[in-house]
């Protein structure tokens, strides 16, 4: 059932993967010719060390961001909740920046990931506590999230301005986001986290549907609402941290992917959670391919492209009256 309905999406992703593999600043053939050994040594080298890791990174990171967005929207009962708007992304970036300041390099994922995860989880837990305590809903809750994100980004920008030049490049990379540094290390990192998320997916999709009930009903059904939320947000914090550590912050993807998924597959996360991931993967791959090819050999920032694609979805969201219904 799940695979059958998601198959068209997976085929689309495969086609775009092929197209993306044939687009670039240099003529390096395509995935098919690479797989059949029909490329020169130089072309094959570019394909295996730069282009394919970059494509794989886009797919895996997009998948994780899509899942994280869909999960947060359910946990907070808010169609606008997503990692960037609520400050989780900025928190993960801040965590990474802190260990880089302590001397780590930006690609030492074994150091940046735990730090990013810890700060992201702290901010997520704070958001749960705040939403339970204040009963803030709709727009007010999002405004708190935006303020948190702005505060954290402000700290990162200040740190970037104060520290020496070599770290600045790494630090500015967290807030603007780029796949230009995607290498096999990031593929491995994202691959491991994606595997973990995939293993948790059947349970998670079921649990997320439970948030249709309010906390009184959840308690009476024998669930602990706060524990459910924290479990889900632990997973999203991990997913967001891995993407931030490898490609930095990407705007709007966590908002747009789940929206499209629910539009196609309905409100139940049985189908829409996995679909959010696949759509996130597709959107990020398309965006990155545009970002690196439209002004080649120069690249435009990834968030510029995802914003151009994602912002119209926000307009659609508002026009469909969802915001006012849930505010």
């Amino acid at each position, binding site marked *: 059932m799940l695979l059958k309905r998601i198959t068209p999406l997976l085929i689309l992703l495969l086609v775009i993967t092929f197209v993306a593999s044939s687009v670039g600043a240099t003529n390096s053939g395509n995935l098919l010719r690479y797989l059949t050994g029909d490329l020169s040594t130089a072309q094959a080298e570019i394909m295996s060390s730069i282009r394919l890791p970059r494509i794989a990174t886009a797919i895996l990171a997009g998948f994780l961001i899509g899942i994280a967005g869909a999960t947060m929207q359910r946990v907070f009962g808010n169609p606008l909740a997503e990692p960037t708007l609520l400050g989780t992304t900025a928190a993960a970036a801040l965590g990474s920046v802190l260990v880089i300041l302590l001397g780590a390099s930006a690609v030492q994922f074994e150091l940046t990931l735990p730090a990013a995860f810890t700060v992201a989880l702290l901010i997520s837990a704070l958001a749960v506590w705040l939403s339970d305590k204040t009963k803030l809903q709709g727009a007010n809750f999002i405004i708190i999230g935006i303020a948190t994100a702005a505060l954290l980004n402000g700290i990162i920008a200040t740190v970037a301005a104060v520290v020496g030049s070599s770290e600045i490049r790494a630090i500015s990379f967290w807030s603007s986001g780029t796949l230009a540094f995607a290498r096999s290390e990031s593929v491995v990192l994202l691959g491991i986290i994606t595997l973990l998320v995939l293993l948790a997916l059947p349970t998670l999709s079921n649990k997320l*549907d439970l948030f*249709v009930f309010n906390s009184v009903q959840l308690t*009476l059904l024998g669930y602990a609402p706060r524990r459910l939320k924290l479990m889900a947000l632990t997973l999203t914090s991990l997913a967001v941290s891995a993407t931030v550590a490898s490609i930095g912050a990407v705007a709007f993807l966590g908002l747009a992917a789940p929206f499209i998924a629910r539009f196609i597959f309905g409100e139940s996360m049985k189908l829409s959670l996995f679909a959010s991931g696949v759509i996130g993967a597709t959107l990020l791959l398309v965006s990155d391919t545009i970002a690196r090819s439209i002004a080649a050999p120069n690249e435009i920032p990834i968030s510029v492209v995802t914003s151009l694609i994602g912002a119209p979805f926000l307009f659609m969201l508002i026009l469909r009256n969802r915001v006012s219904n849930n505010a």
Partner: protein
Amino acid sequence: MLETKQLQLKFGATTSDLNLTLKPKTITWLRGKNGAGKSTLLHTFMGFTPAKSGSVICDGVTVNSKNPAATAAFFAYAQQKPDFAFGLSVARVLELGKVDLSASISQSLGLQKIADQEVTKLSGGEAQRVLLALALSSNAPYVLLDEPFASQDADSIRKIKELIEQQRQAGRCFLIASHIQVEADQELVLV
């Protein structure tokens, strides 16, 4: 048996001490004007709203917010105004609430006809019948219903009353806040 001892509510107009005993196989009709504290009373019984003073003791166990497991074990509850967070189908919501769509309760409440509809697009009465199905299908001995008849047509009211009566005879204890008359073993009037 559920007992309240000198219970004072935190919200609502009622200021008197509530000393109340709810026994198995009984129905208690909770009456009172709007704002008297009927919904607060139900929430206080379940431990979701702290009491101003006094206590709620259920089969010897004190119920409060620190003991959610006791709340889940003792109580079923259907609130007056459904507030489903998003548009899952009725069938999916019942599945999540461990309610069998083909069971007699779902049938009596007419839920099979609306099984494919989104819960957020139901009429007030239909959405409340989904909540009633959840409450009436649980195994909890104490069933608290907040205005279960308010949005229902005559036929639905009759069927809901039949279900309540069947379950009362089977041993459950009902506390029903209602503006509409309920045939009850005792009445509690909040003033």
